[in-house]
């Protein structure tokens, strides 16, 4: 997630600030939820507000990534897109395999929201390896 902000460019610095803001909100809501701050509303329709609130920073992070690509040069844009596609593909393949494992092999249930941290963890592994736009 932060590999892109390592570039000392205005776009890289803006991306870093936006990432810190969105992920700060994401982590804060997650920690509050894990800490039991929203236990009283869980299972009730109003809990959808909580679900949307914790998901909103994810949409924000995608916007930050697209803005970074828009404001970067053609090489950075192409490599970022390639890294994103590879990471998304690997994350979807792994999570789908786990889902089929649940259906067919009795694997323990994995919550759907895990796809997001899984994607960025894979992105962090993939980014140093994908340095060519070709």
């Amino acid at each position: 997630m932060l590999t892109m902000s390592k570039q000392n460019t205005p776009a890289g610095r803006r991306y870093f600030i936006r990432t810190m803001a969105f992920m700060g909100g994401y982590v804060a809501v997650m920690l509050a939820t894990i800490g039991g701050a929203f236990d009283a509303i869980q299972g009730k329709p109003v809990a959808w507000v909580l679900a949307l609130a914790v998901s909103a920073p994810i949409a924000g992070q995608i916007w930050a990534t697209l803005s970074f690509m828009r404001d970067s040069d053609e090489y950075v844009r192409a490599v970022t897109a390639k890294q994103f596609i590879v990471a998304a593909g690997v994350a979807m393949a792994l999570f789908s395999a786990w889902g089929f494992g649940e259906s067919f092999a009795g694997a323990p249930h994995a919550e759907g929201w895990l796809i997001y941290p899984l994607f960025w963890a894979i992105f962090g592994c993939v980014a140093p390896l994908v340095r060519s736009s070709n």
Partner: protein
Amino acid sequence: MKNKLKLLRVERNWTQEQLGQALGVSRQAVNALETEKHDPSLDLAYRIAALFARPVEEVFENPHA
């Protein structure tokens, strides 16, 4: 794509950072061009050629010729 970008840059004693600034791209982009990890767009190829006052095909080898 094979090119003479590094040769032309070194002839002028420019760093990758300086060339990037002259072209309006990052140092990483200059490095990727020099190491053939990025094929430039037509627009960038013309900007590079104009900066060095050379025809595009003198800077970038035409792989189809």
